[in-house]
């Protein structure tokens, strides 16, 4: 059952038995509310060890035991994503991943879904800029039944032509649906403005109408053959298993996977920064809100400034008390929420701040975005700094509750080749960030005179007042330019 009519504060958003009625201190004096209770020492998170094994074909296996719930999570990660899409074939990595479970081994798309659903399992295939993955979550008692299907899906997809046509039409239709939806258009328009049509990061993961129409079955087969190799893949297993118990099962299903030709990947090149601040308006007539995105080219995940940037972004737009949210939501009421983030990939992804704001406050909102993006360059108040560091560092344990969360964090370690003690040292690395380091990071990475600004909204209402702000040149982008090749 789904609860009726739920609205959350934020997005990102009988018969009872009295078992005990022990301590009744009702008569005691009232508590002291003049100041918040002091906090004791923060607890530390003790993660189970990562047990590193290898299958006979060299495929690395990381195992983490978590015995709380009788479930197992098995992720096969392939180090190939849309960053590896060849020029002219933007979207092939994503479509390849999406097609993996549409026919594999001896099973059809429907047979795979029936078998997996019947086991109460969850099998997903996905791809982002940097990697692709097949992920299985299953009651541990049924792991043995589900693994062979997962292995077929990852290693032996058949890419049936009729299923390819179905997915192609589904994706083309989704692009059509995005045309009137400001919140779907805004991220695509921003990527297009910042990176252009030629750079891989300038086009959505799924590609464009043109590339989607052109993909052949052979394109997918070729991408899978070239990039899905045991030499550039690994298995992550988390849950109610033991390493010794699970290894024979993995060996049976994945141990005979042989490399054909070694795959090579070339990193997406770093994109240049915008030469100057420029506003791009995408017209969606009658929109009740304008979707704003402001930003520039950010950093790669390998940046040495990772920890100062986490703290910086928390202060600017990465938490509820962040400056952008406090200003645009709490102080002005222009939006339901404003935020920012550094999208870190193998190559520098965007830094972007954004919000959906009411149409008649679009220009005012832009003014406030610029105020905060300039303001973050000034020295940071000690209390604000301390709050942000604690929020990031002390909130870490909550990210490790489920086996899917644990496996996702292990994927991050593997894809970005982070040190083995990364999570053990995470808290001290955050706590070591100084005000000077945050200020230096802001000066380096937030450049208010070189911002790409995208506004998706009702042009005839918003343009005159945006123009009057004199933030920079204004240009217009059609929806075809946002979504096209």
């Amino acid at each position, binding site marked *: 059952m*789904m*609860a*009726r*009519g*739920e*609205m*959350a*504060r*934020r997005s990102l*958003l009988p*018969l*009872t*038995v*009295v*078992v005990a009625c022990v301590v*009744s*201190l*009702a008569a005691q004096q009232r508590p002291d509310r003049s100041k*918040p*209770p002091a*906090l*004791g020492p923060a*607890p530390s*998170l003790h993660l189970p060890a990562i047990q590193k094994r290898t299958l006979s074909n060299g495929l690395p296996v990381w195992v983490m035991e978590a015995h*709380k*719930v*009788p*479930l197992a999570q098995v992720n096969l990660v392939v180090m190939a994503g849309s960053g590896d899409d060849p020029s002219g074939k933007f979207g092939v990595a994503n479509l390849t991943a999406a097609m993996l479970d549409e026919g594999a081994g001896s099973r059809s*798309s429907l047979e795979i*879904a*029936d078998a997996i*659903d*019947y086991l*109460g399992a969850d099998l997903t295939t996905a791809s982002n800029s940097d990697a692709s993955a097949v992920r299985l979550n299953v009651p541990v*008692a*049924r792991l043995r039944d589900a693994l062979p299907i997962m292995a077929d899906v990852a290693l032996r997809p058949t890419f049936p032509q009729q299923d390819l046509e179905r997915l192609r039409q589904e994706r083309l*239709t989704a692009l059509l*649906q995005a045309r*009137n*939806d*400001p919140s779907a258009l805004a991220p695509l328009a921003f990527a297009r403005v910042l990176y252009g049509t030629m750079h891989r990061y300038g086009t959505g993961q799924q590609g464009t109408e043109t590339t989607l129409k052109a993909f052949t079955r052979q394109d997918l087969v070729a991408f899978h053959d070239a990039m899905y190799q045991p030499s550039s893949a690994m298995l992550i297993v988390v849950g109610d298993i033991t390493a*010794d118990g699970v290894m*024979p099962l993995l060996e049976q299903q994945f141990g005979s996977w042989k490399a054909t030709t070694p795959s090579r990947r070339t990193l997406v090149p770093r994109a240049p920064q915008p030469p100057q601040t420029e506003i791009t308006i995408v017209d969606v007539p009658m929109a*009740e*809100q304008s979707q704003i995105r402001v930003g520039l080219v950010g950093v790669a995940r390998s940046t040495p400034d990772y920890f100062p940037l986490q703290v910086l972004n928390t202060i600017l737009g990465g938490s509820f*008390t962040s400056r952008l949210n406090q200003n645009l939501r*709490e102080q002005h*009421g*222009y*939006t339901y929420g404003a935020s920012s983030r550094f999208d870190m990939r193998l190559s520098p992804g965007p830094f972007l701040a954004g919000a959906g*704001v*009411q149409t008649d406050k679009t220009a005012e909102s832009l003014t406030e975005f610029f105020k905060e993006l300039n303001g973050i360059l000034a020295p940071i108040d000690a209390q604000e700094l301390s*709050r942000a560091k*604690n929020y990031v560092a*002390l*909130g870490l*344990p909550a990210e*490790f*509750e*489920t086996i899917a969360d644990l496996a996702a964090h292990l994927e991050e370690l593997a894809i970005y080749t982070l040190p083995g003690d990364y999570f053990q040292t995470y808290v001290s690395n955050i706590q070591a960030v100084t005000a000077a380091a945050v200020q230096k990071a802001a000066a380096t990475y937030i450049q208010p005179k070189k911002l790409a600004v995208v506004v998706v909204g009702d042009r005839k209402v918003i343009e005159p007042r945006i123009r009057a702000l004199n933030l920079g040149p204004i240009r217009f982008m059609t929806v075809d330019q946002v979504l096209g090749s």
Partner: protein
Amino acid sequence: MRRTIILALVLLAAPLSAQAPAPPTAVPAKLEVPYRLFTLANGLTVILHQDRSVPIVAVNIWYHVGSANEHRGRTGFAHLFEHLMFEGSKNVKEGEFDNLLEAAGGNNNGSTTNDRTNYVIDVPSNALELALYLESDRMGYLLDAMSPERVNGQRDVVKNERRQSYENRPYGMAEIELDQLLWPENHPYSWPTIGSMEDLTAASYEDVVAFFKKYYAPNNASLVIAGDIDLDRTQALVHKWFDEVPRGKPVEPVAPPAALLTTVTRKTMTDDQARLPRVYLAWITPRMFAPGDAALDVVSSVLAGGKNSRLYKRLVYDTQMAQDVSAFQQSGALGSEFTIVATARPGKSVTDIQKVIDEEMDRLRKEPPQPREVERAVNQIEANFYRGMERVGGFEGKANQLNAYYTAGGGPDYFAEDLARYTSLSPSDVQAAAIGWLPADRRVELIVEPEAQK
């Protein structure tokens, strides 16, 4: 649709062995969430549950008031009020609620439905007392800090929430329209929890004062604390911070008018953000946990859960007349709503899609589903119970589910009984639910047409 939750028993999970072949459907049968329940002298019900696997604590409070307690002219008020609960109280200055929790590494949120308002605070376990201090201060002393300015500030935020979720989202307004068509005009489920723009404008500071006094008393709330806690110490802390909050007057239960569809209601509306036509079919169905509620969850799965479900396979997979189809039972305390939604592919007709839906509904009414269709649905539901045992906090963790079960009138640890509602279903139970609750001649049919494109 099910979003249920389960608990994990450390004891019954035998580590996987490479030797023992697993039986095809051998999931541990027992779900158990031990808890301690007590009631303060002021009427506050408290439920404690210990789970020390991660050093965090979830503090989850439900006030038993939602948009169903509103009246026309002030729709959206329960949710607007929820926003005001974060704006400070007598001893917590404006902004400090969030500042203090973030400085402790915590997160918080709140949500409002037709039937209840909940607040969640998730903190590292050393900050439990801070969370209780904040939660009790706004329960006891919210009005000392309330002002018309604060109401105005959150009024603007909520109006933008409405724009983002409804006006500026394709098909957003259809969801509001559907409830208006389905429920009688004076039934509280006929208006949206977010409220109308006019009513949000009309909400006043005086309304806030009256609403708080009427509904935000300890005797109209239940508090769950789950996670890395010591039970005795936590119980003592609850007494320390909540005992002094005075009891309020008893709250009268909502007495809705009868809601019964007697005919087919049809409407067509246009949406300037939609590109494709969409059809909604909706029925009034049994309330949460009443006979038929669980069977209708399984009906939704047989119809539209997964690629092999009847409607997905015919509409999306085989004929590709539809871009998507979904079916779900939205359960409420006063009644539920079963909805089927399908979006046409470009050039396809929603009339033809509706014909297919009707054929499949007829088939389900005429003969029970195959046993495998029901088993497939129930196995997925069962696995989701276990997935729900992994988290203590947030809107979907154990703390919230304990509160949900308690509020619905079962014991807080109703997990196994809830699962049994599904595992005991036979194919003919599923058929009976379709016959009894989803008739072709008593329902709402709403069609959304895109505005002509330039």
